[in-house]
């Protein structure tokens, strides 16, 4: 392959990757927008995480008022009893998540090294605060790590999933 052909191939692959990222975000947006109630929104989140991100072990934790404890209120494919609560306390990783910054193993290696066995924690934001945390425990065997498109999608879920899950008057405290 000539250098020009190689350059063209890289450009083409880059364009496809970029378009793919846009498709992922558009599909996730439509899927969440179609949700008519919380159950539907939870199903949409499960569907997005399984089909677009590649995980079948998902948990959604409510952030308690004092932000010290995360309590499991919905899960898919994980042992609910084993993950019923996460103690945020002074845990720096979970503190950052509650402050609004997603934790993504692989895309954010420097900050890894914590004892919590999840691949990602995504703050679900609503009204300028974190009302819940989406945890992704493992990835499918064929998926080595999150890529850049995945991180964009996780950030999208952080911004948008809360609107589908909770109305303004129906925050997680009222579950």
């Amino acid at each position, binding site marked *: 392959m000539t250098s020009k052909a190689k350059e063209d191939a890289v450009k083409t*692959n880059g364009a*496809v*990757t970029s*378009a*793919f990222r846009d*498709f*992922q975000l*558009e*599909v*996730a947006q*439509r*899927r969440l927008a*179609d949700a008519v109630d919380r159950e539907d929104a939870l199903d*949409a989140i499960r*569907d*997005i995480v*399984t*089909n*677009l*991100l*590649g995980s*079948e072990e998902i948990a959604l934790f409510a952030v308690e008022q004092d932000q010290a404890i995360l309590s499991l209120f919905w899960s898919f494919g994980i042992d609910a009893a084993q993950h019923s609560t996460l103690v945020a306390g002074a845990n720096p990783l979970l503190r950052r998540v509650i402050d609004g910054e997603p934790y993504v193993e692989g895309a954010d290696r420097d900050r890894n090294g914590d004892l919590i066995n999840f691949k990602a924690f995504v703050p679900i934001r609503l009204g300028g605060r974190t009302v819940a945390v989406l945890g992704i425990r493992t990835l*499918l*065997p*064929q*998926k080595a790590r999150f890529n850049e498109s995945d991180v964009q999608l996780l950030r999208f879920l952080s911004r948008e999933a809360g609107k589908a899950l909770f109305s303004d008057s129906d925050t997680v405290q009222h579950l």
Partner: protein
Amino acid sequence: MATKKILLVDDSKTALMMERSILENRTHYECVTAMDGVEALAKAREEKPDLVLMDVVMPQMNGFETCKKMREQADTREIPIILVTTRSEESYTEAGFASGCNDYITKPINSMELLELLRSYLGE
């Protein structure tokens, strides 16, 4: 040259939307969809697709069973079938090939991999 038609089968709305987006934006293939195996069998006979891209885990009739039934029917026997699954273990792929599928692709779908695979069966 006639447009090639692909039957997309998945009970996941997200998977169908994603596959459709990739194909409608990056290829000239026409897409039709079904959300379970029973509907897929009917659509395959009615629409006569050039290829079937089908999920394995579905309600009513799973992808393996649907694939087997398509191979038993004269009018769907020759249609290439690519199974889509979250499982990549050997036992799983073996079960797929035993049911009569031509190929396998795993979720989450990689757009480049999907396009290359489809082009290898259908051309541009």
